[in-house]
């Protein structure tokens, strides 16, 4: 489990996060949602240690991550996998080499064991016959899958995904969402996803954290989203006039009924 306690972050005079206290649970897909500029990417980067908080603490289990030095932080990071918004696959390496990179760097596995682990990860993300291709030679959806395969190759305890659906068509986005959810359940890992995709919220939102203007505005799961009367949440979910009209007519019908 990951816990954040009163996280504040400022860049100069601009206060981006104003005291975020929340929890992310193992075996669940934990979603950080919010409008662009709400501070969710900064929160995600603070969680993985790419950005230091101005104040506050982050606990990975019982370990206070924010109090660790760089070397100690690396031991925690060995348990972390991350899927980046742009996949962040190394251009000069093939798909196979990208996935094998963490194994080459941190394990003493034989060449054969590494090859088997790479195959198993590629199979897990339903990709085959792309071993020798370069990232530029596969589609955006495939790049995301390769990114996921690389993120899970060391069997992490924590998986972070920064906008995993950005740039994907709705159908591929659902496939990626389902893949992340299945991996989370199979491996019982703590998955934290940063998204503003409503499909993801309604499909895989086991634990949803709404960040609004740097504050924790709402917390719940996907079943509570539509029932909630929280104004900030409603404004975020029903942002488009079309959805507002749909909601109004649904409410009308339910009142008439």
């Amino acid at each position: 489990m990951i816990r954040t306690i009163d996280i504040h972050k400022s860049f100069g005079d601009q206060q981006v996060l104003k005291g975020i206290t929340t929890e992310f649970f193992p075996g669940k897909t934990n979603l950080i949602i919010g409008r662009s500029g709400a501070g969710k990417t900064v929160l995600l980067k603070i969680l993985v240690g790419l950005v230091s908080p101005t104040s506050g603490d982050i606990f990975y289990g019982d370990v206070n991550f924010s109090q660790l030095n760089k070397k100690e932080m690396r031991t925690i990071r060995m348990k972390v996998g991350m899927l980046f918004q742009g996949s962040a696959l190394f251009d000069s390496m093939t798909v196979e080499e990208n996935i094998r990179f963490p194994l080459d760097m941190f394990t003493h596995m034989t060449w054969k064991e590494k090859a088997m682990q790479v195959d198993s990860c590629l199979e897990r993300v339903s990709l085959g016959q792309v071993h020798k291709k370069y990232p530029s030679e596969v589609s955006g959806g495939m790049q995301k899958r390769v990114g996921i395969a690389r993120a899970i190759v060391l069997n992490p305890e924590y998986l972070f995904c920064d906008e995993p659906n950005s740039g994907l068509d709705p159908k591929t986005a659902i496939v990626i969402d389902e893949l992340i959810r299945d991996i989370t359940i199979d491996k019982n890992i703590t998955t934290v996803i940063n998204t503003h995709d409503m499909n993801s919220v309604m499909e895989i939102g086991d634990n949803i954290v709404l960040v609004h203007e740097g504050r924790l505005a709402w917390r719940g799961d996907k079943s509570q989203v539509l029932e909630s009367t929280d104004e900030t949440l409603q404004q975020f979910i029903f942002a488009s006039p079309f959805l507002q009209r749909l909601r109004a007519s649904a409410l009308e019908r339910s009142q008439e009924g």
Partner: protein
Amino acid sequence: MMMGTALARPERTYMYYRETTRQMNDIGVGSLVIVILISLFIGAVTAVQFSYQLDGTLVPLYYIGYIVRDSTIIELAPTITCLVLAGKVGSNMSSEIGGMRQKEHIDAMEIMGVNTAGYLVLPKIIAALVVIPLLVAIAAFVSIVGGYLAMVLTGSLSDNDYIMGVRSFFQEYNVFMMFVKAVVFAFILTSVSCYQGYYVKGGSIELGKASTNAVVFSDILILLADYLIASVLT
């Protein structure tokens, strides 16, 4: 700070070794043609210029070989080669690392637990420290050959006279000075370029600026170091 982290103990020596050999190939083999071409013409031009300067004087013409050899070994081979490499290799390094920073490759490595400063910078520095002195030695040899071709093939000087000049008044110490310069310049151009790329922020305009800064700062520091080494070692 970057250098301190870069010099930390590698996570996996084999991976660093593999990256170092890749860099050696990129810097060495990748720069060989341009270094040979430039050195050939530098040697030729130096010979032609001194031939013109010495024409009608009492200085024997075979001195041209001696002048080409010493000016090449002491100054032209290490300095010009490294200034050219700062443009070719330095800008390439800063763009490569800067591009990795912008495409979140460095963040991805950091999250895996990789010491990014070490993995991305140290192999480049080691490769440069090994390969650039070799390139400089090749440049010095090719320059002397360039002078020979310019003098002998045009009939300005006989084959024997040029070779006699090249073999006159030779001091091994000058070769030592050449290698000192090559090592120092190699360190400057790789560390400055890697620094510029590693700390790049923003978009493509900033990446372009970082690449330009890598070349400009490397060139300035190389010229400054050249003067300091010349003052200390002569």
